[in-house]
């Protein structure tokens, strides 16, 4: 009976999915168009009215959007490769730092949460320092980490990955801890009735129950890891990544503002890519009633 029902429902579900995809694409176009309209509209009004507050509007502060995009396909220097090729190389370099930092940080955050969920004492003792760790500006510790590790013979990009991990572990630790504690008390009683060990309860109940929480943290961490990598590159004087490109183009901003804006677009695209990868993994891993997905 159920089989018949689901077969009959199947085409409707397929239609719904195609429809949802189409809606999404349309929404994307609308949002991009709105951003374009706001940018160009503000620019047009700003130039007409000779706006000085909050900033004077001109070709340096606000280049035309299509020119910024067009700049990507111009040579980065005379007879040099296209800017987009340079930036994609830089993005790949930064992506490696960010990805390593993301996995390292997530693993540390997850492990920390698993330890803390089993000990009230450790939780009370450690949690304040975990929180405090995030109030230290990353710009302040970046040189220490890079120089310190550099003197031990660690390559620059690995040190940057560790900085990215520093930003990544925190949301994962906090959210995973909450997720591990989110298991229904009745479900815990059920596990006790089976005389299940702590280890079994952890893997069969607490961890699966925590997945929606873990993934909302991973989505934050995915973008944070890129911010960490870009910021980490600056004091490390690493030139190959997006951070290096941003510093470089920043120096020549008044001459060629479009380069920096184009770099921002690539950096944003990298962040969105990371986010989408995690969101995709979430859809595969988290099998949950729609209303329970955090």
């Amino acid at each position, binding site marked *: 009976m159920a089989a018949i029902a689901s077969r009959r429902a199947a085409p409707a579900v397929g239609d719904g999915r195609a429809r949802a995809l189409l809606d999404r694409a349309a929404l994307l176009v609308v949002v991009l168009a709105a951003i374009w309209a706001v940018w160009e509209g503000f620019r047009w009004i700003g130039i007409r009215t000779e706006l000085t507050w909050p900033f004077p509007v001109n070709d340096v502060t606000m280049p035309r959007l299509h020119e910024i995009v067009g700049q990507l396909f111009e040579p980065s220097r005379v007879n040099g490769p296209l800017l987009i090729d340079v930036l994609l190389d830089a993005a790949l370099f930064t992506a490696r730092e960010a990805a390593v930092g993301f996995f390292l940080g997530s693993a540390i955050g997850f492990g920390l949460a698993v330890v803390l969920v089993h000990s009230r004492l450790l939780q009370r003792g450690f949690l304040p320092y975990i929180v405090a760790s995030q109030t230290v500006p990353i710009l302040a510790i970046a040189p220490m980490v890079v120089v310190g590790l550099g003197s031990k013979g660690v390559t620059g990009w690995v040190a940057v990955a560790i900085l990215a991990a520093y930003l990544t572990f925190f949301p994962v630790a906090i959210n995973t801890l909450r997720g591990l504690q989110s298991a229904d008390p009745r479900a815990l009683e059920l596990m*006790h*009735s089976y005389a299940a060990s702590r280890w079994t309860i952890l893997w069969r109940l607490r961890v*699966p129950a925590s997945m929606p929480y873990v993934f909302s943290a991973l989505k934050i961490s995915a973008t944070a890891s890129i911010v960490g990598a870009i910021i980490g590159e600056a004091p490390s004087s690493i030139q190959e990544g997006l951070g290096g490109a941003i510093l470089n183009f920043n120096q020549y901003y008044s001459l060629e503002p479009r380069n920096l804006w184009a770099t921002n677009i690539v950096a944003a695209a990298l962040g969105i890519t990371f986010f989408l990868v995690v969101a995709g993994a979430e859809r595969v891993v988290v099998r949950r009633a729609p209303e329970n997905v955090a």
Partner: protein
Amino acid sequence: MSAPHAAVSLAGVGKTFGKGAVRALEDIDLAIAPGEFVSLIGPSGCGKSTLLRIVGDLIQPSVGDVIVNGKPAHRARLDHDYGIVFQSAVLYDWRTVTKNISLPLELLGWSRGRRNERVREMVELVELSGFESHHPWQLSGGMQQRVSIARALSFDPALLLMDEPFGALDEMTRERLNMELLRIWERSGSTIVFVTHSIPEAVFLSTRVVVMSPRPGRIAGIVEIDLPQPRGAETREQPRFFELVTEVRERLAGSGAATAPTEPALVTEERV
């Protein structure tokens, strides 16, 4: 004290929460024979759910002895001697019906083949064929509770502990599941301890009804239910059924545990 043949034997069991501040249970003596269907009934706060958890070794009694299947309750829990069903189904959202039923079997280390075979039997027993690969949120409340019962029975425990399992269901679903539970009980031959606050439900299902009174929780009386087996829809219409419902209700009232009468109890008054 604890007869070797008893499925559950409680002797002088008491429970206080906090530093003696709340006396939840006092002087509980009760022996349940194998194959019996015993209901614990009483108003909220009479400690019936606490008592069920003490039998299951999920809560430790402050005083007294608890023997389950001829061994201490702790040993019985480690030996997987009982299955438990709660008021909510407590299914794992991330598991299908099949996977939820096989959870205890996985923990017991059953082989995949043996698990699949048993799950098939269980799905048939609780009449959920066709829903094996559904997730819990795709099922109605009654169906979820049937999965929960199948999970509790999957590893063939000698004892089934049920904590108001049908309390959250509508009256029609509850009566149908009452019938199904009796059928399952007859087929499995297991002992059932059933917590409820519905008088007709307790009388319909049980071989004995243990009436409890609150603050502190005590046994106020035990009513033998001598309705013939097997029971069916017509059981609820027999005069003896109404007599027994009335007797349980009077015991509850006499114990100072009078609560607002449930609707079916009002119906009985008109009929008797």
